[in-house]
């Protein structure tokens, strides 16, 4: 009965066709635009082939944006995983079932917030004069001003902290749930061998969870690519170009500063190629 049904065709084909059209049209068109010299203000355009790409590699602001994006990926992914594993293990160790549920609910809240909201919440909190997060510093130093968002050295970390606030806490919940799915016998055995609590986790539970933890990291790497909202609201890529990631730079080239749509699209195409290749390779390795 199941085998001769027309269901898979009628259910799958329309959806996949629509997904293909919706994804391939913009992707291919992005490449077409990148090979032209369109501008927002001008009507006409001509084909310039690869000159946009050639220009990019001599554009120091672009190279800076690449570097900032790489830094952003590393900082947010590592910090998120550290926070998630740390808090997940702590909940597993010291919290009873009721307390766990309570913390899980609290820890999911930040990730549900629109990133624009999260960015505003922390933009106020980091305000040098009136912010709640900078208040302890003002209190201790007797009114000295600390402005994390306008210092080139700290701005990226200040924005990244919001990302970790959203994702690190959320992933802590997932790490806890993963720990709860483990069979209790290996942990008991390690305990009988007088292993310390941290040793049990470092040598028994976390290695057992290696595969799901790597998948989790993979998800975070993809989500970290979406840094635009936070950066747009909190710093606009500033101070200077200290927090200008690739999507921020592409946006400001295409829309704010010069309206060079083709140039911005060339940048987006390079990002797309880099991410698709990297993540396809990583995904195949994760699956293998």
């Amino acid at each position, binding site marked *: 009965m199941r085998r001769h049904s027309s269901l898979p065709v009628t259910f799958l084909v329309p959806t996949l066709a629509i997904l293909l059209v919706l*994804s391939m049209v913009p992707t291919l068109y992005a490449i077409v635009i990148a090979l032209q010299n369109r501008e927002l203000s001008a009507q006409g355009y001509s084909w310039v082939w690869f000159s946009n790409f050639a220009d990019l590699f001599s554009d120091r602001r672009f190279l800076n944006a690449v570097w900032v994006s790489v830094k952003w990926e590393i900082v947010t992914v590592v910090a998120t995983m550290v926070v998630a594993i740390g808090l997940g293990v702590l909940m597993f160790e010291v919290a009873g079932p009721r307390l766990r549920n309570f913390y899980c609910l609290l820890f999911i809240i*930040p990730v*549900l917030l*629109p990133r*624009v909201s999260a960015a505003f919440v922390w933009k106020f909190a980091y305000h040098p004069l009136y912010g709640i997060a900078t208040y302890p510093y003002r209190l201790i130093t007797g009114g000295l001003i600390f402005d994390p968002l306008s210092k080139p050295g700290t701005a990226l970390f200040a924005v990244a902290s919001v990302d970790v606030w959203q994702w690190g806490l959320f992933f802590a919940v997932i790490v806890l749930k993963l720990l709860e799915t483990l069979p209790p016998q290996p942990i008991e055995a390690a305990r009988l061998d007088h292993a310390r609590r941290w040793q049990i986790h470092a040598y028994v539970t976390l290695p057992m969870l290696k595969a799901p933890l790597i998948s989790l990291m993979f998800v975070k790497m993809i989500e970290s690519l979406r840094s635009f909202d936070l950066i747009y609201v909190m710093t606009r890529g500033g101070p200077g170009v200290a927090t200008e990631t690739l999507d921020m730079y592409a946006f400001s080239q295409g829309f704010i500063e010069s309206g060079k*749509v083709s140039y911005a699209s060339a940048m987006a195409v390079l990002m797309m190629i880099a991410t698709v290749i990297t993540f396809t390779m990583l995904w195949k390795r994760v699956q293998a």
Partner: protein
Amino acid sequence: MKQYRMRPGRLIAKAILALAGFLAVFPLVWTALNALKNNVDIITRVPKVIFTPTLANISYILGRDSVLTGLYNSAVTCGAAVLIGIVLGLPAAYAVARYPNRFAGDIQFFVLSLRFLPPVAVAIPLMVIWLQVGLYDTLPALIVTYSLLTISVIMWLAIPAFQGVPKEIEEAAFVDGYGAYSVFWRIALPVAARSLIGAIAFSFVLVWNEFLIALMLSSSNAKTLPIVASELSQQGMNVPWGILNASVVLLSLPPLLFLGVLSGFLNSVFRQKKS
């Protein structure tokens, strides 16, 4: 002896957890409090906990045409995109879950890989396309663009949900003479409903929170709420802190309504894994 040595460690661990719990919600609570303050009470060097509350910020926000239009636009685009996601995503997910074929793995990877696409790379060409067809800055353009997101996310999350439905129930229905389609409608959908609602809620939150694509595809008429909220901060030198805080609260409320549904969804996902 051992128990004695453990104690300070446990205390510290509990303190760290309590601190993390505090950090998770306090910034949000503080924002909500600020939304109820007059500007004088916000711009203080020492944060004020006790103040005379005012509803002026909230009523200002709810009285602005731009905010109401944003709210309407957000509701319509999210609603329509999620609906399209349900209609196209759920059946496709069921087909992948229950009628395995050679391409099942490839289809799943294709759906996931849509998430790799940098939003800028989608938004720039779409802006040019919508401009050319004359649909730039309209809700249909946003809805179609978001459908890509909702269909793929709902499909991705619904595949394991359908796989979690015990095969025996479906087999029994076949034996009872149900056709393939009615098994989907009357058995698989209701049995998997709880997980499916979680997946749908998740896709709603994603679209509601989306910013970059909405920013690039709207200029005046089709602005969604996140765009309107972000623009409130750019009104000259005198930042209306209270109003901004109120708009952040308004923007954050709908996703938070799904807190219960989504944490239940998370639980059911892991319960499945365990068994």
